[in-house]
């Protein structure tokens, strides 16, 4: 029988939940990995009814690097797909003055996600198959005053995924980078986000499933972001440094 199980890292987030539902609707077996996994009991009941009868939740802390190998050992069979939605936007102003806060943002968006995927990638490489989906951010494409601590960590994560994809391209392991742009979640509730540029969590989930099915490498959830970020990347630094973006 084909193993088509999906591991979702950071499954308690709004995007994680939406991804889980989309995979459940497709009838895929699910493992939800999150901190305080017991709080996902109601979600598990929901996912089972939606089409993933064996959905289960496991304890996972992306910042606990020592726990990575035992965590993967504990999964049993390696899932066919691992989707990492771990992340922490943090507060830019606080990150500027509080180095501890900045470090947490850096570890949550780069070190933690990159290393769990690194360990997973090695196991998939040994198996000769698997798909890794990393949810990064458009914020990683150019450092801006408004979010460069978060952006720099996402830049690292994006480059890490890029290198992983390059290394594993001929090893049967696929790596997909997802750049959602703004997402309408409980974390962004109350923020004034431009509707045209803001994706719903379900939209991100659909895009991830489509990218997996079509074998894409890098996707922007809303295509308009590709052009916006291209324009932002092209601005000469002498001009860019004076902008407020």
């Amino acid at each position: 029988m084909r193993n088509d199980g999906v591991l979702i890292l950071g499954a308690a987030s709004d995007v994680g939940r939406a991804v889980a539902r989309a995979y459940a609707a497709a009838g895929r077996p699910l493992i939800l990995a999150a901190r305080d996994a017991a709080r996902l009991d109601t979600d598990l009941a929901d996912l089972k009814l939606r089409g993933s009868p064996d959905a289960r939740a496991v304890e996972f802390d992306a910042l606990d690097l020592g726990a990575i190998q035992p965590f993967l050992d504990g999964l049993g069979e390696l899932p066919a797909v691992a989707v990492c939605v771990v992340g922490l936007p943090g507060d830019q102003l606080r990150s500027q003055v509080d180095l501890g806060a900045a470090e947490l943002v850096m570890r949550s968006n780069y070190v933690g996600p990159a290393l769990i995927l690194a360990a997973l990638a090695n196991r998939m490489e040994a198996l000769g198959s698997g798909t890794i989906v990393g949810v990064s951010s458009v914020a990683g494409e150019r450092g801006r005053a408004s979010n460069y601590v978060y952006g720099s960590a996402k830049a690292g994560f994006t480059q890490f995924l890029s290198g992983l994809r390059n290394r594993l391209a001929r090893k049967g392991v696929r790596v997909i980078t997802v750049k959602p742009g703004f997402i309408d979640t409980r974390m962004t509730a109350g923020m004034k986000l431009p509707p045209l540029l803001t994706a719903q969590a379900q939209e991100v989930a659909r895009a991830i499933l489509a990218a997996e099915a079509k074998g894409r490498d890098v996707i922007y959830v809303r295509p308009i972001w590709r052009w916006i970020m291209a324009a932002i990347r092209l601005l000469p630094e002498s001009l860019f440094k004076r902008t407020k973006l």
Partner: protein
Amino acid sequence: MILAGWGRHPRVECRLLSARGESEVRAAVAREAQLIPRGNGRAYGDSALNPAATLSLLPSDRLIAFDAATGRLTCEAGTLLAEILEVFVPRGWFPPVTPGTKFVTVGGMIAADVHGKNHHGAGSFGDYVESLDLALADGRVVRCSAHENPELLEATRGGMGLTGAILRASFKMNPIETATMRQETLRAANLDAAMALFEESRAWTHSVAWIDCLSRGSALGRSIFFRGEHARLDELPADERASALALKPRTPHRVPLDFPSFVLNRWSVAAFNELFYRRSAPGTELIDYDKFFYPLDALLEWNRIYGRAGFVQYQCVLPKEASRVGLGAILERIHAAGEGPFLSVLKLFGRQRGLLSFPMEGYTLALDFHARPKVFALLDALDEIVADHGGRLYLAKDARLSGATMRRFYKGSDALERFAGLRARLDPARKFASLQSQRLEL
């Protein structure tokens, strides 16, 4: 943030909170001095608006249990009907009652005690709620069913969120063989003909009429009449039977911008109505349930066709014996005011339970109007006609009724007193309150 109901009138600055699951709902209820629960914002007016705190239950949207032997579904209050359809229609189950949009939550359907095209035989959604869990103002969570707190269940269905926050509910769904409806379309030359069709269609599960409010004289109340049944498997063409329950994907269109307010005027509406009347050819056809129950959902954000000022829905019900005279008076009064309501719907209701639930045995008429001063004066006049004929209004669509008129609707009934008495006992400080409940002095 600025919040509004589906009619986009009124728009009010509200503190919007959200809650996922029982613990967050209880924390919000304990913390806030005043609040109103909100589902997907499909009530038209100010039912789910409170500037002090409006608590969105949308994150509480999980399916909890389903019994495939009985069709009983238990889910959280914020679960969208659209999600339930997506998950359960392919398995052969359909909600027992559905309003004209699937973008409503289960909690909202209970709070408004919504009805559908099958009300004359099937009753309202509340009739199928076997139990619900309610977070009360005093911090308790109580189960309400026919056996536990039955009085609270009767007050909560149709209670517009004023008895407490619904956490989860269990209701029974009906088995279906296909995702298809057999629809029969008929023309009714005037109001009498339309009412005769409702009477003769009592044995049909679903019936509704789209009424042309601009026709006059002997054509007053001319209508397109629809009646329908869930199609059985043997009614489908042989090659479609294998996928009888499959959803046919349909890409919804979206109204991209607010129409300028002059787009909908009595002439354009008259032209639309004429076209609609002529295009709706009498006959029988098989259509998917989405088209049958949710024709307007195919046009996302259709409320924008009324422009920035928004619109008001006016839905009244008149007792059976007063319906013909009362409906005639309402249509004549609309003509006299020179207003052309768009998309008016006529429907025969059956008997109704529930303390404040809207339906009663008789005819209901739903009308849309631009929200503008002249219209509000007309609606006040319609209120009088409704009250004079022993009818009442649907609170889920109301944005402007007065408390005094509301009390006239319930003259001779102790429903309002009983509702107030129950709230005085459970929620003496009126923690659960909306702009509507304050306006209506509920």
